[in-house]
């Protein structure tokens, strides 16, 4: 019987012939925690009588959710992480390095065929690199650091095949918002998503990160993409590790299998307060916005900043809008400085904040006021998400966010975009 990507990677990592439904204990290739989850993990690690992490070279901690620290409570949690990282000799990314989901792939810690866990739900991101990567909580992170292993239920796979070519002005973000709307917020719960089809192959690796990042918004355990020449070229540029591509067998068994034609897709927007509340941009165009956010683990990469800059260059952000930009990492920040992208954004009126999660998690960097509307490239629009339960969050692509920042209301980016991608 053929295997899915998930079954292949979990078989290799557990040394068993694993199929959907099996429970396996598997060796982890990389383990990550951020400042929202690591402090509890350190407590649990101690409570387990842990003294040393199994393999410090395979563990990273990242300060990105509240960076730099907005208050003394968080400062104490950060100090605990710094002390633990130093004591254990693990990889440590302090304030200003960037978002964990940018850093793990950018620094070469996730390659095709890997099994990765992170104490952050958007750890599904590295599925774009053909790695099985999934989010866990703090106690799982502690057990993983201590033993180098973790238990998994081998998930069934839901294959989503995207046929056709994305039209001009329509991007990976629009595609994944559209899928979230169609599959719903629990449409893939306990399952792995496999993204396939020429519309996925056509995406850059950066675009695939956006897709895999939001797999969890459909409840999925992983958001996997097959390994191809683009993946291998990207890995060669970012990692010295040897990839172990795990592509699905032609006779792999899928629990669900659906095809979507993307030829006519238009820019999509997720309305408050759920990610699957998705409509075409035309339906909400004209809705006033007071804040626009460009960044996060979904859309804070160089490609995203360049796309927004291509719309904002030589223009001015609407006087009623605050445009906040958070580059995904220091490297993205430097690249965007070097090629003039950031200058274009700042001249247009953007406020640039520290590389990291920015205002997405509601701890700092732009908490909206009561009744305000925010349009953001982030992945979540839950009530209270950005720190105020009386604000309204709309999710969209970097192009739609840029066009909306100019207009002062939600706007269709297509008039600004000349050719297809």
């Amino acid at each position: 019987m053929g295997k899915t990507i998930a079954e292949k990677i979990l078989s290799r990592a557990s040394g068993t012939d694993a199929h959907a439904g099996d429970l396996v204990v598997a060796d982890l290739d990389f383990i990550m925690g951020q400042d929202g989850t690591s402090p509890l993990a350190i407590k649990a690690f101690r409570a387990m009588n842990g003294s040393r992490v199994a393999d410090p070279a395979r563990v990273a901690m990242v300060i990105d959710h509240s960076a730099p620290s907005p208050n003394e409570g968080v400062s104490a949690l950060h100090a605990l992480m710094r002390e633990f990282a130093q004591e254990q000799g693990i990889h440590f990314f302090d304030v200003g390095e960037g978002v964990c989901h940018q850093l793990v792939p950018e620094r070469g810690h996730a390659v095709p065929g890997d099994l990765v866990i992170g104490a952050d739900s958007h750890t599904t991101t590295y599925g774009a690199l053909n790695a099985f990567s999934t989010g866990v909580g703090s106690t799982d992170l502690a057990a993983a650091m201590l033993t180098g292993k973790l238990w998994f239920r081998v998930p069934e796979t839901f294959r989503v095949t995207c046929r056709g070519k994305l039209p001009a002005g329509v991007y990976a973000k629009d595609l994944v918002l559209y899928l979230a709307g169609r599959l719903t917020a629990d449409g893939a719960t306990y399952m792995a998503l496999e993204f396939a089809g020429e519309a996925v192959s056509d995406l850059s690796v950066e675009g695939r990160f956006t897709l895999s990042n939001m797999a969890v918004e459909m409840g999925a355990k992983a958001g996997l993409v097959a390994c191809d020449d683009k993946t291998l070229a990207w890995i060669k540029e970012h990692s010295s590790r040897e990839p172990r591509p795990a592509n699905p067998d032609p006779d792999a068994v899928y629990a669900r299998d659906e095809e979507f034609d993307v030829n006519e897709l238009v820019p999509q927007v997720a309305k408050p307060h759920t990610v699957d509340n998705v409509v075409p941009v035309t339906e909400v165009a004209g809705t006033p916005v007071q804040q626009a956010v460009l960044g996060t683990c979904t859309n804070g990469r160089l490609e995203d900043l360049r796309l927004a800059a291509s719309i904002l260059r030589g223009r001015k952000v609407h006087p009623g809008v605050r445009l906040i930009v958070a580059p995904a990492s220091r490297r993205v920040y430097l690249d965007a400085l070097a090629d003039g992208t950031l200058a274009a954004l700042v001249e247009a009126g953007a406020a640039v904040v520290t590389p990291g999660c920015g205002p997405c998690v509601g701890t700092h960097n732009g908490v909206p006021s009561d009744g305000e509307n925010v349009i953001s490239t982030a992945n979540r629009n839950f009530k209270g998400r950005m720190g105020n339960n009386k604000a309204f969050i709309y999710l969209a692509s970097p192009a739609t966010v840029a066009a909306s920042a100019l207009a002062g209301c939600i706007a269709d980016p297509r008039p600004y975009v000349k050719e297809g991608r």
Partner: protein
Amino acid sequence: MAVLTGRVHRFGDDVDTDLIIPARYLNTSDPVELARHAMEDADPAFASRVKPGDFVVAGKNFGCGSSREHAPLALKAAGVAGVIASSFARIFYRNALNIGLPIFEAPEAARALKEGEEVAVDPVAGRIRRLSTGEEFSATPFPEFMQALVAAGGLVPYVRRRLAERGGRA
């Protein structure tokens, strides 16, 4: 584990982790402090109304969103004896088992139980009984490995015991 008896607090579908414990309170990992803000953005009065031993009952996809373990911790520290829902988001499911918060995937019970009524729950057998009528509902049983985790009281005691058995090394 003994049978647990408490009152029902009802919530809807897709209760996300930002509703269970908003990120603005994650500047601490002290369970008592977290408990003060449990479910705050869904029901600001919840923390003051909930009594030790009560149950949270909800629809589908309970705990969707972030991986923050503060979510099940806040509920547990608020005195919640368990969560009964039609379905759970997977990270919340794992986190709840890991920290020893009993959870029950029981769609019929989740649909039927009313705000404020009393239930008796047998966590081992996965039986939920409505006290007013004696009507019973069953929860999806845990696989064997997870039963061991639940019986140990969560992943911390489970790992500690396993390591001790192996002479302290992973």
